């Protein structure tokens, strides 16, 4: 099995993701202490924040690949940018759903329009959701790849705005855990958070590579079909 996973990095990545997910679930439910202020519901933090950071990371990765496409004309960068944004949108949906559940139990509301971080994340999510409308309304080819790359690059501007919104707005409802003074939590909580973040990032990276391999295979099969026609 060892040599098989060495030959197939994707299998190794999937195995690592499985291990990290299992470890994070064990830490969240059997190791980390219950928060004195929010109680048991604070455990949503260990999934909500890593999922949100993973969404940001994939939007940023999609923008980076879009830049590589426009700048270096890197082959396959357009497809990688598209798959990264697709992952970002999936994790964006999860961020909104887990965030809503946490908001309901903590604040008594599913959604608060007065919270700038929530609204800005929704704007970011809708912006990248519209990316697919653009992509599927234009015929495949270099023009579509260029348009999508420019669009993906515009969206990346929203990431730091969304991330910093809560700090700039200085509102008190949405909690701020990571400040300039460091993480505002105990060592065991921070350790659990780091493991959860690593688990979510490796899980998303695995899904990204699986989807990318499928898309590449699909495009090669299409080429083969055209050659045989």
């Amino acid at each position, binding site marked *: 099995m060892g040599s098989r996973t060495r030959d197939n990095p994707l299998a190794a990545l999937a195995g690592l993701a499985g291990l990290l997910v299992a470890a994070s679930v064990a830490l969240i439910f059997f190791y980390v202490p219950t928060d004195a202020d929010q109680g048991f519901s604070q455990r949503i933090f260990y999934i909500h924040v890593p999922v949100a950071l993973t969404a940001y990371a994939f939007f940023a990765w999609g923008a980076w690949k879009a830049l590589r496409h426009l700048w270096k004309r890197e082959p396959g960068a357009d497809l990688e940018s598209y798959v990264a944004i697709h992952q970002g949108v999936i994790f964006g949906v*999860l961020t909104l759903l887990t965030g809503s559940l946490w908001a309901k139990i903590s604040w008594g509301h599913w959604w608060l329009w007065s919270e700038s971080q929530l609204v800005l994340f929704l704007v970011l999510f809708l912006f990248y959701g519209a990316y697919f409308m653009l992509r599927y309304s234009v015929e495949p080819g270099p023009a579509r790849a260029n348009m999508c790359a420019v669009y993906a690059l515009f969206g990346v501007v929203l990431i730091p705005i969304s991330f910093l919104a809560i700090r700039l707005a200085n509102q008190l409802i949405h909690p701020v855990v990571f400040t300039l003074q460091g993480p505002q939590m105990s060592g065991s909580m921070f350790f659990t958070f780091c493991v959860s973040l690593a688990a979510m990032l490796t899980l998303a990276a695995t899904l990204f590579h699986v989807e990318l391999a499928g898309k590449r*295979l699909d495009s090669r*099969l299409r080429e083969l079909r055209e050659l045989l026609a």
Partner: protein
Amino acid sequence: MLAVTAAEKYVAAAYGIVFLVVLVYVLIIALKLGRLERELDELTGRIRQRREAEARRREQVPVG
């Protein structure tokens, strides 16, 4: 019966949603891979048929 608090229900829902979405995503990818496999089988069959037809044509060409 085990008493479940509201907080526990919400935490279970949050983790359950993530698990469910990942599961659905993997299912969709598995279905797509199944479709690709069928397409690959079809293309392989077509190439095989062409080769057989070509070999038959060569056998039928009169020598001299």
